[in-house]
């Protein structure tokens, strides 16, 4: 029983960075921008967050540094694709490649360093509940922040005028431009916000989840977060569901390995990646379903004027 509770708790923790990063990418994509640089942004913000937490001694400082680093990288990406109309795929790939090199480069001094003592967290009273306490209420506060962020993003997209404008820009930048909306400014704002969220996710990985800096430690989570936006058919609430699903798969394979299941560890470690492919196949099988939900201008450049 308590084992299951711990597995649930670990799943929520593992899903949290995916949820936050996926949410950031969803905001990008709702504005029509596909950011393939997610992996690179996560790496850079992971090292930035770790460094800030290491020197500053506060994990919240780490999150702030991660958010700032993610936003800064996203701003460069956004400036290139939104203002200079560079190819979104190529630019995103460049950011990913740059991020993996750059994070390894600046992070070399932090390899093997320890952060200070990890504090235990528990929600008063609820944390004492049998089963539910250890499963749900002894998490790092960021786990709850992620849930709140998803709720906030849902409210923003579907209940506010600004959210409507964002969706409109992603649907038809030409029409939005004709109505006088600053398409490029809105897209850039979405990209930077998404980058900041990816940054928080990256910092969470290195500061709370691992908590270590290792080269390449993001291990494809940026790409999985991109897959999550497809899985979620671009709706925030489903991002959370998908993130916990992937968190669960990751935890389950670790759990099974610890149980000494007779399957080579490498095959267990493949599970999250294989699961991503399987989920993509299942979701994308019906092209109409994807086309109905996908922001219509996703990945396409927008030229104002004329």
């Amino acid at each position, binding site marked *: 029983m308590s084992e299951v509770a711990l597995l649930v708790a670990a799943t929520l923790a593992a899903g949290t960075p995916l949820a936050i990063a996926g949410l950031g990418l969803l905001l990008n994509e709702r504005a029509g921008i596909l950011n393939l640089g997610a992996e690179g942004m996560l790496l850079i913000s992971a090292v930035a967050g770790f460094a800030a937490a290491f020197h500053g001694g506060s994990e919240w400082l780490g999150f702030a540094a991660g958010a700032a680093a993610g936003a800064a990288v996203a701003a460069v990406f956004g400036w290139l694709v939104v203002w200079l109309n*560079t190819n979104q795929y190529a630019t995103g790939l*460049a950011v990913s*490649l740059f991020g993996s090199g*750059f994070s390894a*480069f600046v992070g070399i001094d932090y390899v093997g360093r320890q952060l200070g003592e990890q504090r235990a967290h528990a929600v008063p009273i609820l944390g004492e509940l049998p089963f539910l306490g250890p499963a749900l209420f002894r998490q790092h506060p960021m786990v709850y922040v992620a849930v709140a962020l998803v709720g906030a993003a849902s409210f923003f997209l579907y209940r506010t005028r600004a959210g409507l404008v964002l969706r409109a820009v992603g649907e038809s930048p030409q029409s939005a431009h004709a109505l006088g909306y600053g398409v490029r400014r809105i897209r850039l704002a979405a990209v930077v916000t998404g980058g900041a969220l990816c940054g928080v996710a990256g910092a969470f990985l290195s500061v709370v989840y691992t908590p270590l800096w290792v080269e390449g430690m993001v291990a*494809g989570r940026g790409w999985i977060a991109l897959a999550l936006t497809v899985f979620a058919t671009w709706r925030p609430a489903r991002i959370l569901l998908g993130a916990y699903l992937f968190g669960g798969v990751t935890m389950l394979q670790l759990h099974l390995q610890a149980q000494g299941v007779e399957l080579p560890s490498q095959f267990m*470690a493949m599970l999250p*990646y294989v699961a*991503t492919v399987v989920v993509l196949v299942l979701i994308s099988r019906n092209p109409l379903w994807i086309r109905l939900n996908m922001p219509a201008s996703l990945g396409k450049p927008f030229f104002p004027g004329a």
Partner: protein
Amino acid sequence: MIRLDVRPVPSLRMSVLSPLIALAVTVAAGGVLFLALGKDPVRVLSMFLVEPFHGVRALTELGLKCTPLILCALGLGLCFRSNVWNIGAEGQFLMGAIAGGGLALWVTTASVALSPWAFFPLVVTAGAAGGAAWAAIVALLRDRFNANEILVSLMLVYVADLFLSWLVFGPWKDPRGFNFPQTVQFAAATEIPRFVRGMRLHWGFAFALVAAVLMWLFMFRTHRGIQLQIGGPAPAAARYAGFSSRSAVWTTLLVSGGLAGVAGAFEVAGPMGQLTPHVASGYGFTAIIVAFVGRLHPLGAVLASVVLSAFVIGGQLAQSRVGLPASVSGVFQGILLLALLGCDTLIHHRLRLVRWTWRTAP
């Protein structure tokens, strides 16, 4: 306010200048980076820009690094031109390495009598088959289930890497290797023939150059090549003409997977001589940059591979000489591609300073 105006005709001058400007930006950024780290920028930069070209041995090492980059980038250029975003060349490279390495392992352990020249076409075939099969998964899932090839091909990189790791930790481990995760050293017969004894540069380099020329002929001198390139920028025109987008997905992925697989096979049967968990060295990813810097053109890929190889070698030199992490070459690669993409905007646009001009009568 600075504004981008579309040029009526793309600027030829800028399309030549753009890679040079991008290279200059990259070098400048590198210099600033090294200065910030308290290293002598001139000394470190010369490791990237001068030493890889200094002397015959250095040049052969450069060619050795160019080989997998050219092979991978040729296929990627074809893919990207037809709007198939295969970014998993690294995984296809690994599967080619596993197939080629497996063949070499079998020849070694079964003591098959074979000359290296007889083995050469066999290992090429094995590598191509391994890489193409891996890419075929991507093609199948995209064609049949509409699954995004970017994410699928990338996920398969991790899967391939773990699969290789399982092989060398498990069934293919050298029984007398003190439990190191690696296969036995392959027999001499499986070695890719070298140009000169004592130099690591092998005939795979010539294979890559020939492949580049053939790819160039295919892309620009055959109907099929033109067809593949239309599907990317103008899918409606491809439908109008009756060119099949499904066959474009399959062709480009199989060709690029096959080429990446050959690169992997060359790598293990060439300089490595055995399979280890560290076959993946990022060639498949660096090749993405090679493809773009080479303008998705086969001959451009050859030129770009020289620059990127120099970066890779420079990174290794910087690591061994001044204690910089080798990943610094990744930083260079990323900056180069970002700078190039930014500069390329100037081929089709020109910058103009404008002011809003109501109330200024002519």
